[in-house]
């Protein structure tokens, strides 16, 4: 047993293991989309230009749509009657399965672009592969989302090129964004028993297989933007097991406040 596997059984969050593997897998993907959507939404009223604000909000809404479908699917797989709202608004921090990358604060615009670049490049490979999932819901979500994510990536690439190959200040900030976030990318490609168990039946994609195409795509963009891929000595992880950074709790407090204070509130 690898050290990480023993950590997993030793520190599993409350409620972990209750979900069937397929539902847990959908929950991971759904939580990634939900949390990044919430982060991108924070740019509304704060973006450098109103046009860019629209673009970021649009991307956030695409991700929210993916999250809704995936959380609904996870709730159905669980079979305990939890719907998308119950999963999004009535779970605590340790029950969230998103990667750490998406929960980190936005930082400046360079960091936001860097995260979108890293994450959308991963999601593009992921959804492209999941289109042939034997789980028809996952395949359908992936088929629709792959086009959305291609646009997210395009947006991130255009900004990476402009900031990286722009002014001295924009270059510095873009490089700092990459430096700070690159270590968190490793978690995206971590294989664990749950993901690997779903591979033989072709429900899931082994995350490790997405790393090589991701590296190739990122390498090309980063060098064209006159930036460098940072040499990182660490790769924090734990999100898939419910072990998060201190930032997620604050995000959830804001995201869940309304639903928890006024259960059943509607527009």
């Amino acid at each position, binding site marked *: 047993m690898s050290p990480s596997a023993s950590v997993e059984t030793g520190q599993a969050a409350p409620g972990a293991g209750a979900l069937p593997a397929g539902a847990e897998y959908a929950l991971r993907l759904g939580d990634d989309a939900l949390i990044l959507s919430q982060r991108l939404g924070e740019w509304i009223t704060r973006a*450098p*230009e*109103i*046009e*860019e604000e*629209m*673009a970021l909000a*649009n991307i956030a809404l695409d991700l929210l749509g993916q999250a809704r479908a995936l959380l609904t699917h996870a709730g159905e797989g669980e079979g305990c009657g939890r719907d998308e709202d119950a999963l999004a608004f009535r779970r605590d921090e340790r029950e969230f399965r998103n990667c750490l990358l998406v929960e980190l604060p936005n930082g400046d615009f360079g960091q936001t672009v860097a995260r979108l670049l890293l994450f959308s490049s991963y999601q593009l490979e992921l959804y492209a592969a999941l289109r042939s999932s034997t789980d028809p819901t996952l395949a359908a979500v992936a088929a629709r989302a792959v086009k959305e994510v291609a646009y997210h990536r*395009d*947006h991130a690439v*255009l900004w990476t090129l*402009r900031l990286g190959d722009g002014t001295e200040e924009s270059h510095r900030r873009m490089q700092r964004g990459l430096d700070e976030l690159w270590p968190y990318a490793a978690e995206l490609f971590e294989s664990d028993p749950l993901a690997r168990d779903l591979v033989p039946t072709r429900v899931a994609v082994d995350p490790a297989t997405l790393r090589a195409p991701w590296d190739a795509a990122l390498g090309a963009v980063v060098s064209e933007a006159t930036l460098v891929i940072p040499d990182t000595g660490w790769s924090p992880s734990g999100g898939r097991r419910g072990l998060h950074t201190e930032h997620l709790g604050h995000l959830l407090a804001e995201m869940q406040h309304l639903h928890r204070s006024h259960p059943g509130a509607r527009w």
Partner: protein
Amino acid sequence: MTDSATPLAATGWPLWEVFVRSRRGLSHSHAGSLHAPDAEMALRHARDLFTRRMEGVSIWVVPSAAVTASSPDEKDPFFDPAADKVYRHPSFYEIPEGVTNL
């Protein structure tokens, strides 16, 4: 915070005019304008702002500075002479049945 009084557009992004073709066979029509740092980004912003509800199959963006506009001072010589030339209107033709865009 020194620039808190600066209006948003003061980031210096130039203005672009956006033309959207809603269906094949129709011509591009002016949809509005937006700010963007360059043409490529202007296209993306136009996609986000003007084609959210499947309004388009093609987008053009043109720097607003490249548009030469007629001046309100020249309104009379420009447009009034056409007012009494009713024979220029295609109102003496029957539109063939089934033709929707002519």
